[in-house]
């Protein structure tokens, strides 16, 4: 990008703008303009990219007016969150705080209050930043994504949602409508940790863990990291190692070593790859210890 040729106060693009009020209308608009359309929700990522000319859509489909996609509902199979739910709503939601604290902890580290009042959970996921702070919690919770396209809707696991930096399993005619999170079983504890340059910043590394205990034995475990690979990732090798083992300091240290070996970070302006590998050990240790302490309660 040559910044000298760009004025980020001005959008010089000529754009067709749509504001559908229903999911059906959105699907039909996306089918018509899929090649050069972008879906606008909170706009906290999209507009910045447009002003930097990193993306130059010809059609903007603003879905903010679809009121039916702004909800947090407790259903029999878990918590259902509409894709247009604001991050701030999730952060403040009692059910999220009490039953899925890891999601609240992840979401409240995103941007500022002003940003979280605009940004949506669907947008944070669809932007598919490797550093998205809502991703590791949802991966650790083994959440699902409900996607609507011209051929109806389908549900996929969040772990299958991210396919590359800025890339998701969504087809150009698809859009994300809902997140579903299964309830945590008894004896499960979770944690989220993020390190960054300041308390309001993109992650150098973020991590979420879920540990389920049976006595002192780890009966199930999920561990997910962001900003250490092209997508937010689960570290299955560690999960396999830990499952069925007695929880101990040694096993946590072993897990930390494996995480450092498994991740494939890059060097950017925020941190070096070497740093991310090294610091991921401490973060894995802390995340597992915190999840364990909470599982014991």
């Amino acid at each position: 990008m040559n910044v000298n040729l760009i004025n980020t106060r001005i959008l010089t693009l000529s754009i067709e703008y749509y504001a559908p009020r229903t999911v059906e209308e959105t699907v039909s608009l996306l089918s018509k303009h899929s090649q050069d359309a972008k879906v606008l929700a909170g706009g906290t990522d999209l507009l910045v990219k447009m002003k930097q000319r990193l993306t130059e859509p010809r059609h903007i489909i603003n879905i903010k007016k679809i009121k039916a996609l702004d909800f947090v509902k407790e259903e029999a199979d878990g918590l259902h969150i509409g894709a247009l739910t604001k991050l701030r709503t999730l952060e403040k939601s009692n059910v999220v705080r009490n039953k899925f604290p890891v999601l609240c902890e992840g979401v409240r580290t995103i941007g500022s209050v002003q940003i979280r009042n605009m940004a949506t959970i669907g947008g944070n996921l669809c932007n598919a930043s490797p550093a998205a702070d809502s991703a590791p919690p949802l991966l650790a919770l083994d959440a699902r994504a409900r996607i609507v396209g011209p051929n109806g809707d389908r549900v996929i696991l969040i772990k299958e949602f991210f396919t590359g930096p800025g890339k998701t399993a969504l087809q150009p005619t698809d859009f994300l409508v809902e997140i579903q999170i299964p309830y945590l079983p008894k004896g499960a504890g979770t944690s989220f940790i993020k390190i960054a340059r300041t308390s309001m910043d993109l992650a150098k590394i973020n991590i979420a863990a879920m540990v389920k205990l049976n006595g002192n034995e780890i009966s199930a475990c999920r561990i997910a990291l962001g900003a250490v690979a092209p997508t937010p990732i689960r570290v299955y090798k560690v999960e396999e190692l830990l499952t069925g083992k007695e929880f101990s300091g040694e096993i946590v240290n072993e897990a930390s070593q494996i995480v450092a070996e498994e991740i494939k970070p890059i060097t950017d302006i925020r941190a070096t790859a070497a740093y991310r590998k090294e610091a991921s050990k401490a973060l894995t240790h802390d995340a597992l210890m915190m999840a364990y302490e909470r599982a014991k309660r």
Partner: protein
Amino acid sequence: MVEGEVEKGFKEADVVVEREYMTNRRYHLQLETKAAVCKPEASGGVTVWTTSQTIHNTRILINEIFGIPISKINIKKLALGGSFGSSIHTNPATLIAVALALKSKRPVKLVYTREEDVHDHVSYQMIFRLKLGAEKDGRLTAGQLEAILDIGAHQIQAYPLLGCVVGWWVSLYKLPNLKYEGKAVYTNKVPSCAFRGYGNPQITWAVETLIDELAEKLGIDPLEFRLRNYVGKGDVFWGQGPTVKSVIRSCGVEDILRRGAELIGWNKRPKPEEQKGRFRRGIGLGRGFHTSSAGASVPSQVVDWGGAMVKLNEDGTVDYVTALMDHGGGTLEAHAKIVAEELGVPLDNVNIIQADTQTTMYDVCTHASRGVYAGGAAALKVTRQAKQKLLEFASKILDAYPHGLRIRPDEKLGQGVIHVEGMPDKQITIREVATKARYKNWGTIAAIDSLRQTSCPPHFTGYFVEVEVDAETGIVRPVRVVAGADIGTVINPDLAMGQIHGGFAMGWSMAVLEDTPYDPKTGDLLNKGFITDYKIPTAEDVPSTEDFKVFFVDTYEPTGPFGAKGIGEGALNPVAGAVANAIYNAIGVRFYELPITPDEILKVLNEKEGQN
């Protein structure tokens, strides 16, 4: 530049330490980006609203460039959201807006985007080779400094800066023999310009780090070492390079260090390298100063003077008119207090006028922490003159001698009351005097004048910082801060304290966070000019007010208004040194390059202690 015999000095030393230091290239990140509105006037002149630390120098430059008579150029004062030196010079946006307005004969508004602003100005980046020698008893014998300044693509103030760096250096500690060599180098980077401290935070970081190291080698408490060598009362101080010097008349360095040491628990601080766990705490000390104005007894090479007007209105209120810019730190609030104090009126009665170049006297610039010391002294000078006139008028009414009259503020009446001590029937409000003066055709009670300070007293500061280093992530957290300051009489305690909190945040950021690195392949800034990747600490990243103790020591500067000195830059200068020394105290490693990032800390700890 050479003073004494450097080689001989180093020979006399029992310990000599020489190190190379590299500072960071910091962006000012003032709240608003550089901007200008220029309106062409029917007279052929222009009216300009712009981000500026000096409306009069801006006017003079527009006159020199465009040939418009000065009387037809009017620069309006604006409230600024901080500047930190980035508008000491006239910003290019101002001149471009004027050129476009003259050509188009239409008003022009020009506002930089943030990324343009990031490409417009940064601090000077400096490389120092610094060598100090001391005897066993802790007396410094010689110093040698080589400074290389990366000034970027344009020459904004490189020569004065080269002089200032040596001035700050020799004014920290007494060096009987010294040698200085300074070079400024053009590079194809963002142009450098003044940045809060004007080279002082950089050189103070290097000196305070080296002094710590030297004291340790000599087995002397670094605090005692500083007390044995600091430049203080009676010594010559360089306020702005070699041509701006004065003798220090007020100095609270010892009080700052002794009291600060007690408050932080200096004697209980850990020993470097004795800690082995994951979370290691350390306490560091950094001290320094900055000049208050560039005043001197001789004309010198630095312009530093300003004027003001005080005018008493018919209802007893006061109009205070000055060209001096308030960057948001409350400088003019302090002026209002000085005017109110001298005149004996309630503070609310002093009205700071929104002024411009057509209605004000020349004022050089709000720079060199001169706002209160020099600007406030000009306010005091004209207030005294207006007061004299007021007392003469009152003396006629009260049938008393002018010099026998006193004025006291009466908050209930909302007036200054002129009275004769012990004679309650002989008193009158300023409103009554001003009103009578109008009816009797005596004239307006007002004064206008300029002032050049003939001294440049340093204000002194000292920071004790406790940090916690996470040896496994390299993250450093500020735990506690104790900051002491000698700013003479404290005119506005809350805002002075605010300067110290802000100075700490900026210095902390300089020590551990900020830089503008380039992509070596493309030559582009890695952050592309976006502040997404130029972070400064938020309130959550610095200690809360409960863990941040500020104290002012009791001093009086005889040349300052009511004994006051500056604070703005001294609040920043020693911070990076204190932080670096605290990190050393925690982990036993010294860093010679800023910022000291978690990446660097982890790398060095792993090299030292092996992979964990």
